[in-house]
């Protein structure tokens, strides 16, 4: 996943940098002397780069989401198991509260009183 994410990000950077160039003041200045047809082609090119960028980022996020979803069973099992353990400990603590804490004190008192 790391290599794939790296590849996605490198390509997204390339596409993003292209769009940043095509929206810069310098680009606007260069397009001022362009013909109507040239301006239309440049505008369509910019929007095609944007389309490629949106499509690629969606594909990257889709792949990541698929992998995250594959983890969900395991996460859910972890949550259930920890919650069950927590409930067991809470029950144990109630029992200790009522019995063991008194017994531990009594165990220390008996030798003193004897």
């Amino acid at each position, binding site marked *: 996943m790391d290599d794939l994410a790296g590849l996605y990000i490198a390509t997204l950077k390339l596409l993003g940098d292209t769009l940043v160039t095509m929206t810069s003041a310098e680009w606007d200045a260069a397009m001022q002397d362009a013909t109507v047809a040239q301006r239309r082609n440049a505008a*369509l090119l*910019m929007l095609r780069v944007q389309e490629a960028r949106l499509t690629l980022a969606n594909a990257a996020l889709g792949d990541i989401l698929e992998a*995250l979803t594959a983890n969900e069973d395991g*996460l859910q099992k972890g*949550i259930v198991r920890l919650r069950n353990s927590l409930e067991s*400990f809470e029950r144990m603590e109630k029992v200790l*509260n009522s019995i063991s*804490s008194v017994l531990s004190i009594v165990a220390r008192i008996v030798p*003193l009183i004897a």
Partner: protein
Amino acid sequence: MIRSLRPSASVLALPLFLLLQGCVSARLAQFSGFSQAGVAYVKASGAFIDEAGAAAVRGDSALLLKARPDLTPRDRLEQISSKNKLLAQRLLLLRQIKRHGQLLQDYFEVLGSMADSKAPESLGVTAQGVYDSLAKLSPALKNAKIGSSTVSDFIPSVVPIVVAPLKARTLEKELRERGPLIERELALQEAMLAVLAREIQTDLTIELNMQTTREIIDPYVSDSEVPSDWTTKRDEILNTTVTSQSADAAAQAAHKLRLSFQRLAANQFDSAALSSLIADINSILDLTEKIKAAPGE
């Protein structure tokens, strides 16, 4: 003096007991700290994901508006239809990623509840109450010592030693069994934020480019007077440029969370590491706030 305990045994038993309890408490504190950081991360990344979606729509709108004067009506219809579809997919993906994040948050929260060392204190208080009642009956008990400590000193620590190590053992077992899955999860979170950070950077820069042209360059280049708020606007826009370049901070915080998990597994996640991690996670929130506050159209 307690005759039934040999002095040598009592001298050895108490320090060892206190040392073991200290180790258990420290380990539980590591889990507690990490779980807090994990919950904070999910909340912060959720806000960042929302901003990534909003920035994607704004960036695309800015491009469509820029291109519009040079397009035919047919071009415009084709372009807006295809972009709407892609953005709808994007926003759906982001909602689903956020929904998954809620499950991760639930996991961190229950981990934190297990590591919570507050519960046993109530048992210590009850045991102390019983001791105090009995001590009134027996002056010998009141003055009794175990090693160099009084029996009263000993009481609150008796009860946690039963429960805390069991909790720590449960958490260690969870770490062993779920460790690879959590490691994978955090790697995916890092990848997700890296993609979104890259996209937010581009979207914000596109927006800023057009805003710079419209509000700063064009008014300055033209022969007309510049607007009265031109200097303020320029300052705001340049500062937002800095924000767009620091979007990587979000991905770096996710990376640090992953490294922190590895440290937790190695029993090396100390309070200094926790403070540093929390600071990085807070930087996601700071960045999100700055993006939200960026000068709009």
